[in-house]
Every structure is written in structure tokens, then in C-alpha cells.
């Protein structure tokens, strides 16, 4: 509720600032403002323009308000900036006719410039923060909403299959080799004697382990993998149950039709 009000208020201030600035420019055109113009015309034009710019930036700042912990600093900077710029404009209006000389000009210009800098810097900072937050929220939403159990199951299956089976990086093109024309006469030993082989004791237990690893039956101390495995096994169990139900229904139907 508070943020809605702040947004409403901010947009109002922004629009007011914009109208004031446009009004100031229109007024300057209307009175043909120049260096030698009447001081009241100069004060009115630059006063409105200055206040208009401050209001515009203040409005933007209000619309892009941040929550804590940055919100507190942001609001502080925003109010300081706004006050500095308004003080700058006010001082200009008061001193232009009587005391518009050094060092007053420097003080007034510094106050206004620092106020505008604070407001625009704060607006930029808020915009960047908002952008980062939105992206992370988007990612979170994507992760939460768009991946179903089936998607995860497919992904795991694909990854495991890719790693083991045909290998995705190998080309599917099959090279056929023509019978070579180089005619070699095989030597006596090559023709007659069998290839020497050595036999070594080895139970190759790894075959079983590899089968388990590929089927996701290996226990690992990794929460994400354990969770995925559980989800996979639950899905598979559900599917088997559904299939069994269908089969039993079919059998019942067949029996009924036979009785009839």
C-alpha cells in the first residue's frame, strides 16, 4: 500500500516537474529571454526550470524507491539532493537581483549542482539495483514454475545417455571403406598361427557398478542428486502402477466379455 502511494506521489511530482520545466521554457520563448532581459523574467524562467528539473528527478527517485537496507540510504540521499537543489534555486532567486557576484554565485551553483548530482546518481543506482533484483526473481520464477518432474527426469536421462551411449560429439555419419586395392600377400605366420592372447584373473566388478551409476542407483552425499533420484524413482513407480492398473482393467474387461 505504502509503495503504491509512493509510486502515485512520485509520478505526480515527476509530472509537475515536467510541466514546470516546459512552462519555464515556454515562458522564456514568450518573453524572448536574453542576457539583458529584466531580472524578474530571468529569475522566473530559471527558477521554474531549476525547480522543474529538481521535481522531475525527485519524482523519478520516489518511483524507484528501494526497500531496506538500501532504502534508508536511498531516501536520505534523495531528500538531501532535493533540499540542496531547492536551496540552490531559492538562493538564486534571492540573490540574483542584489548580490549575484563571486563567491555567492559559486556557493549557489555548487548547492544546486550537488543536489542535481545526488538526485540523478541515486536514480541511476536504484535503477541498477532494480534490474538485478528483477533478473534474480525471473530466474527464481523460471526454476520454480517451468521445470516439472518430467523435465528433470528427461534432463537427467539425456545427460547420462549422452555420456555413455553413442556419444553426442561423434558424427552420425558412417564411413564405408571400399575393399582396398593394395593386395598384400599374408606371410605364413599371419595366415596360420592364431593371435597370442594373455589371460589375466579379473572379475570386472566395475560392470555392475557402472550399470548402477548409469541407472542413478549410486548413493552420493549430494542433496540435489539424491532429490532428483528420488523424484525419478517416484515418477517411474507411479508410471508402473498406472500401467498395471490399465492392464488389470483390460483383463477384467476381457473376462467380462468372455462371460457374456
Amino acid at each position, binding site marked *: 500500500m505504502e509503495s503504491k502511494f509512493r509510486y502515485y506521489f512520485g509520478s505526480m511530482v515527476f509530472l509537475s516537474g515536467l510541466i514546470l520545466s516546459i512552462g519555464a521554457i515556454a515562458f522564456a520563448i514568450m518573453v524572448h529571454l536574453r542576457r539583458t532581459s529584466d531580472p524578474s523574467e530571468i529569475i522566473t524562467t530559471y527558477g521554474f526550470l531549476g525547480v522543474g528539473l529538481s521535481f522531475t528527478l525527485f519524482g523519478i527517485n520516489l518511483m524507484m524507491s528501494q526497500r531496506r537496507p538500501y532504502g534508508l540510504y536511498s531516501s536520505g540521499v534523495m531528500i538531501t539532493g532535493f533540499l540542496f537543489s531547492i536551496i540552490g534555486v531559492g538562493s538564486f532567486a534571492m540573490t540574483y537581483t542584489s548580490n549575484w557576484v563571486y563567491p555567492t554565485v559559486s556557493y549557489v551553483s555548487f548547492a544546486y549542482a550537488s543536489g542535481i548530482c545526488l538526485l540523478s546518481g541515486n536514480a541511476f543506482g536504484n535503477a541498477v539495483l532494480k534490474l538485478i533484483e528483477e533478473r534474480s526473481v525471473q530466474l527464481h520464477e523460471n526454476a520454480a514454475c517451468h521445470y516439472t518432474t518430467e523435465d528433470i527426469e528427461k534432463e537427467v536421462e539425456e545427460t547420462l545417455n549422452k555420456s555413455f*551411449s553413442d556419444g553426442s560429439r*561423434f558424427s552420425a555419419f558412417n564411413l564405408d571403406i571400399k575393399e582396398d586395392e593394395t593386395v598384400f600377400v599374408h*606371410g605364413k605366420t599371419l595366415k596360420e598361427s592364431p593371435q597370442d592372447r*594373455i589371460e*589375466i584373473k579379473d572379475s570386472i566388478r566395475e560392470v555392475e*557398478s557402472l550399470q548402477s551409476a548409469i541407472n542413478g542407483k549410486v548413493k552420493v552425499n549430494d542433496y540435489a*542428486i539424491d532429490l532428483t533420484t528420488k523424484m525419478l524413482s517416484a515418477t517411474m513407480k507411479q508410471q508402473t502402477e498406472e500401467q498395471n492398473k490399465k492392464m488389470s482393467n483390460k483383463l477384467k474387461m476381457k473376462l467380462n466379455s468372455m462371460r457374456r
Partner: protein
Amino acid sequence: MAKGLDVGTMNIICAEKGKGDSITFAQQRNAFLKMEAGDLAQNMLDSAKILYTQKDETINVLGEDAFKFSNVFNKPIRRPMKQGIISPDEKESIPMIKLIIERVLGKPEKEGEIVYISVPASPVDSKVNVLYHSKTVEALAKRVGYQTNLIDEGLAVVFSELGDFNFTGIGISVGAGMTNITVAYLATPIVSFSIARGGDWIDEQVSSATGVPNERVTAIKETDFSFNSDYEIGSIQGALALYYDALITYIIANLKKKLLEVAPPDVEFPIAVAGGSSRARGFLDVFEKRISEANLPINVSKVKRNRSTTADSKDPIYSIARGCLIAALTREDAEAVPAAEEKPQKAVTA
């Protein structure tokens, strides 16, 4: 019965399940030597039971004997493969590899028997493309009548050596032409790459530094070299130790670089080293030392040591073929389960 085939630059090894709890390995050197043909030479080769082929006036001595003859006659050996892939410089590379593959693989017991063939991953330090090699080797095995599947050499090492760690870890195959590395998590590769340096690179560097022929350096490296010993200044062993260390440092530097590009899971990664070029005595000690100094961006639990004896399937040279066999048997089992499930269903419906 399913088979595993390791097509390496130096050796082509086939692994298959033997009788009972055993594995049978068939191994041939991936090399040949050209000699002039003649009745005398042929008789001598036949009586010595040496594998050879003849074409016109040339005899090609195959396998291990080619190395022996090369040292005796001081003739350069011909290699069908270079830097882990089929050599583009060798005209007769494909017929020779075909011959060796046919010999070690043998005929399938049934049509469509599964075979897993190890192939290198894409190298990070060379423009070499491994696709042509992979597809050619696959086609050669297919011609014999097998149902072929390709597997990364590094992943084969993971399958063979890291079963106790749920196939999580780093598999490194230090071969003759290339070094293949795969970082896997639960049998799933996270990173797979190769380096175009291996045992041959060491031999070449030592040969050019000391002036000793390449073949002799290879022979010394395989029979008379070990780390952790004092070397004479200017000795071949000293140069070998130096370049071995340079290779290990290079492998680890590339592994670190690759690991920095990915985000591996926060688990312990054991390292398994295999391949013919890792057989040198003391290799793993140096490797372990360099790994501990490297400060890798993952948690390395240990460098796994093989029971490195020659009559053991855990010999690093057999590791890749064994990994391929494990993959093939697993695939065969997986295919057998649905078939077995279908049978009772058919019986019920009947």
C-alpha cells in the same frame, strides 16, 4: 561376447572376457618395417614365426618384431599412427591398421557383437581433427562384423580405474602419440580433452638433444629407465627424466587451465593415470608431486596407483582396453535386460 578395443599410436589392444573371472588381452605393436623381399628373407621370417605381409618386392614386418629388426638393421620404423591419429604421412597406414585390428579383434562370435573403441578427444594444443581417425577406425571394426561404439580414451580410464569411486575422478591416459584427459562425475564426462604430446614427443626431444636414434631411445625408455635415480651428465636416462618431467608439467598446466573454464561439483576427485608412457618406474611419484604443487581448482583426493606388474590387467597399458570392455559389457547387459523382459511378456500373451 562384447569386446573392448584400444587403438593406440604404439599398441593396438583388444580385451574380452575370458573363461570364468578373467580377461583375455590380445596385443600388437602398431608399427611395421619395410624390407626387401627375397626367398631367403621369407624363409627366415617364416621359420622365426614373424608376422609379415608381402607386396611385389617389399616385405612389411609387423608388430613387435618390426622394432627388433629396426634396432638390428638400424632402419627407421614405420608408424601407421602419429600423434594419436592415423598418420597422413604414411601411405600404407590404413591397410596396416586394418590388418592389425582384424588380427587382435578376431571374428565376432555372433553378428552385431558389441565393441567399444577408444578414440582421442580433440586436442587443445593442435589443429588436428580427430573425427576422420575415429570414423575410419570405427569403419574398420564394423567391416569385421561388430556393432561399434566410440568412447573417449580418458573416460575408458575412468571406467577401468575409478569404479571404487563411483566413476568420479580424473582419467589420464599418457599414450605414445597423445595424452587424453577426462574429468568425470558419476560416469558422466565434465571435461574431455587431449594434448598432442606423449611418449613419442619425449623420444623425439631426447633423440634430437642427444643424437641417439629415436628407436634406441624408445627401447631404453621402455627397458632401462626409472625416476628417482642419479643420472650421469649427458646420459639418455637424464634427458628422459627431464622431458618426462616437462610432459607431466605440461599435462597438469593444461588440466588446470581447462578446469578453470568449468565449474566441477564440490566433491573429491581421485586421479587415475594409465597408458604405456606412464609405465616408467617412479612416474606416479613425480606426477603426484607435481599435482600437489599445482594447486588445482578441484579437490584432488589421491593419485590412484595401479598394481603395475606386467601380468596384471591393471597394468596401465591394458587400462584403456579394459575400460572399453567394461563399457561394452555394461551396454550388452543393458540391452539384454529389455530382451529378457520381453520374453515372459510374450509367454503371458501367448
